């Protein structure tokens, strides 16, 4: 971890959805991570693991009724450190688009179909930077040019359906960077795009992070995206981080069986001919509640009875590499020591015994 205070410190973030006549759903269950300027942090996991809900919670975009958000997300702002989760909706509106911005998954449905691209860019310039008329239009054209849209003045007059998929995502990125936010969240920004366009968009995001020193939170299920873009990675499972590490250690020595499973299910061109893929069996619906033990246990190849004795803690096995597993892959010794040192695991053991 860096020595200076991180830009954003998310601590024990939880989001619980209350359903009428049914059990609560803990979509995010105590997620902690930090974001730093000029770095890309990845949140990785299958659908339903809580990564999108995490991003919406940070943006203050979750519905106001029917759920409870817990924990804190302290962000370094010009007026001092502020907990985003504790801010009033009005104050969040002032910050959104200006200090923190978001890029969404499907660029076509994320753009208003009946409003020209130009207005969709200038409205944010007007809101946060007070730019109007020709000044706003000129700045909007510059922004489109900056994200690689050719002939920006003409594009400003066009509507979303007249742009290609990659062009639309570029336009959305232009809106996100319009006010030079310190923090950007990208929720699967390349999932809806062609492979060739995906690479261009990732490169564009990388450039923006490097040039502006923005902190980027990259939400994805695509380990290829993670490998190419992210500096730090958090692997989420059932609303909790199960492994957190910088890129190279995570890919070189994954310790959590779920991470290993994710890596094993990626097709590789350099794999020996005929070698089968090893998918993670079952689906995310097969998990058990963290309160009953490790949520991944029912799908895990390494699970023992110990996995069901209380929820495992996130432990730092080596330096910046942390995992939440009692039977980690490959690092048996380090993991054993970690489990013994974890008082919560012992306590749970007694409680269940």
């Amino acid at each position, binding site marked *: 971890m860096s020595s200076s205070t991180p830009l954003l410190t998310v601590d024990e973030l939880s989001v619980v959805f209350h359903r009428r006549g049914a059990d609560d759903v803990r979509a995010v269950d105590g997620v902690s991570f930090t974001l730093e300027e000029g770095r890309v942090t990845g949140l990785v996991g299958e659908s339903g693991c809580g990564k999108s809900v995490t991003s919406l919670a940070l943006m203050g975009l979750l519905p106001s009724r029917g759920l409870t958000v817990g924990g804190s997300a302290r962000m370094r702002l010009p007026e001092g450190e502020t907990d985003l989760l504790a801010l009033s909706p009005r104050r969040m509106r002032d910050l959104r*688009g200006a200090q923190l911005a978001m890029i969404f998954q499907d660029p076509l449905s994320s753009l208003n179909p009946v409003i020209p691209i130009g207005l969709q860019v200038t409205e944010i310039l007007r809101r*946060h930077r007070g730019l109007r008329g020709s000044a706003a239009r000129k700045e909007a054209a510059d922004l489109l040019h900056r994200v690689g849209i050719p002939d920006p003045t003409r594009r400003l007059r066009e509507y979303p359906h007249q742009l290609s998929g990659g062009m639309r995502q570029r336009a959305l990125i232009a809106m996100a960077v319009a006010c030079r936010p310190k923090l950007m969240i990208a929720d699967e920004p390349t999932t809806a795009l062609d492979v060739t366009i995906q690479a261009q968009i990732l490169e564009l995001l990388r450039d923006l992070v490097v040039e502006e020193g923005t902190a980027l939170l990259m939400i994805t299920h695509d380990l290829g995206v993670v490998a190419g873009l992210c500096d730090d990675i958090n692997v989420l499972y059932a609303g909790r981080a199960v492994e957190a590490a910088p890129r190279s250690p995570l890919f070189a020595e994954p310790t959590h069986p779920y991470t290993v499973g994710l890596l094993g299910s990626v097709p590789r061109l350099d794999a020996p001919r005929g070698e089968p893929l090893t998918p993670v069996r079952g689906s995310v619906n097969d998990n058990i509640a963290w309160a009953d033990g490790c949520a991944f246990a029912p799908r895990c190849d390494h699970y023992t009875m110990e996995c069901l004795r209380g929820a495992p803690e996130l432990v730092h096995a080596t330096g910046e590499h942390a995992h939440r597993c009692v039977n980690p892959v490959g690092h048996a010794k380090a993991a054993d020591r970690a489990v013994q040192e974890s008082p919560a695991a012992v306590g749970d053991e007694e409680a269940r015994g």
Partner: protein
Amino acid sequence: MLRFIVRRVLQLIPTLVGLSILLFVWLQRLPGGPEYALLPDDATDEQRASLRRSLGLDEPLTVQYLSFLRRIAQGDLGTSIASGRPVLEEFLTRFPATFELAVSAMVIAVAVGLPLGYLAARRRGTVLDFAAVGGSLVGICTPVFFLAFILKVVFAERLGLFPSAFRLSPGLDRTNLSGFAVLDGLRTGEWDVVADALAHLVLPGLALASIPLAVIVRMTRASVLEVLEEDYVRTADAKGLHRNTVRTRHVMRNAMLPVVTAIGLLTGSLFAGAVLTESVFAFPGIGSFIYSATQERDYPVLTGFILIIATVYVFINLLVDISYSLLDPRVRAQ
């Protein structure tokens, strides 16, 4: 945009031709033929035969159809059996009143329906939502003549808040320019006439507005609920735009698309629906005129009515299409 409008206007031609054929066939098929419909029951066979000749009914159908078209084009819709005056003239003296009534009904329906539908969607599941949805159900179910009657008894006769009948108070001194009482009053600056004409429009306007209001509330609510779930509304929120900008520019503008179509169709039906309301309030518009024409089997008048209402429908649809293309650029592209 201009090309879209021109193309859309050209598409009206086949519609209007089809309409004229239907009308022509209807005329041909009148019970006993036009010579029975147009002449009193005690007319002699000779009179009928001479009428057939004078109407050109002994000529081939194509010739008859063309001369029928020529007469319509010249504004000749025949002569009213009841009054003996040209049908077109009868309509022109009454149309402005019905037009003002239909417009006020639509203004009420839109001005109340859109905000109410929006609020019901925004506060889904609250008392307001249930009241709006339940109230609109009642509005759709209540027969217009019954509602008109209740309004008249309660607000005009019991409470005396509004006049109970006619278009203007008797004996009011006014300059008649075009037949549109409110418009004429505004143009000549006769404010007492404007106020009096508006007061006379309130109750019939409310009665006539009930069904379109209910439809608009329900459609707006459903449409807003759908749009609120759209990704682009979330994008607008993510940009930190003011709530009112998100509401008007991103939610309402998209939610309006289906509602505009409904408003167009409802406006057309208002002209036909005015028949009952006008009868209850003795409102001197097309409605009450048609009511008596039906009683007296005044076929030339009924034919003219069908022609006028159908033409109004066609042109309102044109307006709907044009406003739709203004609201939604994707329509223009097709």
